[in-house]
């Protein structure tokens, strides 16, 4: 009897392990969060840079993509900046403000880091702001930031702009180019979500538009159908502006939108930060997203020498077209350029002077940080199109260096 039970356990274990191994052989394993150690070129003390990425929690799909961008940058730098080896220490901020603060403290106090890439979410950025400001740790966002850390503290770089500043031109576009006069909105209910929507509304209203319906959905909402059931029709709102913090939330939302649109004449969707989608998610959502207009911080198809070189290098390394990976790549490269200027001095004073009031050419386009750390960059309006088997955003309008946040002095 005991032997039978033991056999049952062994067989079960073997089946499960075998199943996992066979699935693992087919699935692509994500990058693991380790310190990226450079090939030593000199005996000089390494420059340490921290990177807060989300590898767990509701936005866990973003972390591995940012790491891809940073790894490519390190490879192109040959793991050396200003003649010194560079070491990037990755920490999982866990989609949580509390965890972000803990990891930031660990990077600075245990690892001696003075410049950090990340965190991503606006609530995380606000959470780490007091500590970073007190300890003079420079940190930069991956995809925009809430206004608070820029306006109230002095060590944060809002790349490529604040949320409000980034989306203000979206409001202009919807009013001036598309001719819309009324707007409905659906946004993720967190700091960044509120400010992205607020930016689009600001630009729309300053041109004369009106917001008629506003909805906030908790992050990770499993079902968007009820929100869509209550959405105004085209007769009541000219456009539905959507921002959701992750690809899976946005996917569920757009699928619910498509289902509801089959019944009622809903207004067209304008998606803010369409970069949340991966190329695979675009393909899976083809019937829903192709033809949709959206705002994007980065368009891989934009024809520009710096961008073309980056896209080619990324495709050669990873076999796919980059999207938000560009943001992390640019952050790493901008830090590298600043460190070259300072001769490897990563102190706050030297780095802040090297980073601000200086023009950087990035795959996304021109970038400039003001004295307060506010990023000024291009905003792109795109249409999702199917080109040669790939589904990607294609630029239809560029707003050059137009991301000034009206709430930042």
């Amino acid at each position: 009897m005991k032997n039978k039970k033991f056999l049952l356990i062994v067989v079960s274990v073997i089946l499960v392990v075998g199943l996992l191994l066979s699935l693992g052989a087919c699935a692509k394993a994500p990058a693991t969060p380790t310190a990226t150690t450079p090939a030593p070129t000199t005996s000089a003390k390494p420059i340490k840079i921290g990177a807060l990425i989300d590898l767990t929690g509701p936005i866990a799909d973003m972390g591995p993509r940012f790491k891809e961008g940073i790894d490519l940058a390190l490879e192109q730098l040959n793991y050396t900046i200003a003649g010194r080896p560079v070491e990037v220490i990755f920490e999982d901020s866990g989609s949580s403000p509390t965890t972000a603060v803990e990891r930031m403290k660990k990077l600075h106090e245990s690892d001696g880091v003075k410049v950090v890439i990340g965190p991503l979410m606006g609530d995380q950025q606000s959470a780490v702001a007091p500590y970073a400001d007190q300890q003079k740790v420079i940190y930069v966002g991956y995809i925009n930031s809430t206004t608070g850390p820029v306006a109230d503290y002095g060590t944060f770089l809002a790349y490529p702009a604040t949320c409000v500043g980034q989306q203000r031109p979206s409001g202009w576009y919807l009013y001036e180019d598309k001719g819309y006069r009324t707007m409905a909105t659906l946004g993720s209910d967190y700091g960044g979500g509120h400010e992205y929507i607020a930016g689009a509304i600001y630009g729309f209203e300053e041109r004369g538009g009106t917001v008629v319906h506003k909805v906030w959905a908790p992050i990770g909402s499993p079902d968007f159908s009820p929100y869509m059931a209550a959405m105004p029709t085209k007769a009541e709102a000219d456009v539905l502006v959507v921002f959701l913090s992750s690809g899976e939330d946005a996917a569920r939302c757009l699928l619910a939108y498509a289902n509801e649109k089959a019944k009622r004449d809903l207004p067209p969707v304008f998606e803010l930060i369409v970069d949340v989608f991966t190329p695979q998610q675009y393909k899976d959502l083809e019937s829903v997203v192709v033809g949709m207009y959206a705002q994007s911080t980065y368009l891989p198809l934009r024809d520009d020498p710096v961008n073309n070189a980056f896209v080619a290098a990324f495709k050669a390394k990873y076999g796919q077209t980059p999207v938000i990976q560009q943001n992390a790549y640019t952050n790493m490269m901008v830090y590298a350029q600043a460190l070259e200027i300072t001769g490897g001095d990563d102190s706050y004073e030297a780095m802040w002077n090297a980073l601000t009031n200086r023009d950087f050419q990035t795959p996304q386009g021109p970038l400039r940080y003001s004295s307060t750390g506010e990023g000024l960059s291009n905003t792109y309006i795109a249409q999702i199109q199917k080109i040669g088997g790939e589904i990607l955003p294609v630029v239809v309008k560029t707003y050059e260096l137009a991301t000034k946040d009206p709430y930042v002095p």
Partner: protein
Amino acid sequence: MEFFATNLLNGLSFGMVLFLIASGLSIIIGVMGIINLSHGALYMFGAYVGWTVAKQYGLNFWFAVLSGALAAGLVGLFIERGFLRRLYKQMNEQVLLTFGFVYIITNICLWVWGGVAKVPFWDPALSGSFDLAGLLYPKTRIIVICIGVVLAVFLWWLQDKTRVGAIVRAGMDDKEMVTALGINMGRVSMLIFFLAAFIAGFAGVVGAQLWGVYTYQGLQTLLFALIIIIVGGIGSIQGALTGALLIGVIDAFGKALFPDLAMFTMYIVMIVILIVKPSGLLGRKVQ
């Protein structure tokens, strides 16, 4: 009228997924007295296996449902046979162990499938909408409702109309007496745990039609399951169904009419039930 009908169906379909998640957990708690916190993780694991079969290998969706259910069932069996049966009546240790498995299973899923979420997927034959007396409604959601009804009837039949069900119900009330009658409750427990885990994995792939698959589903669906059980009552299939549909419908109408309260609609129902009837709407008292 269309608004009411749409949200009612939205609530029923959402509620049916909640029922699929909660039914298995309710049975385990009722029969074995084990609060299996890894139930949500089993749901997620089944969903990932189903995604691999249906999307990565391009096989039949319903084969993917079966594969996901079987995979979750085997993992559940491994947890029960390898660990839980050694912790009989040690509730604290059971809770800690099963919560540990949440992290183990979640990290295995993260390692195997990565952090990028899988968008909802379904049988291609279910694309589009049914015309329900002039109301166009997605086929996938109607199918989810039908599957939930069939499972509820099956579990009710199993529980109330079969000898196995009688043994299970007797075991819920007095395990020692049932054992004294010569029934191997250890084997019954093993089968029940496998069935519950199987249902969790089944629910994962069926639910993926609406929710997709992502790595924090393990904890999110566990929370949903616990809320349903609190509302519906422990160890009762009818309770789980009633609780799930009640919450689903209230959540749907709540989000549509009062979106500012979207974060709280589920919990408001739970709080009211805890105050008015702490054992749940149709709960059984666990010995």
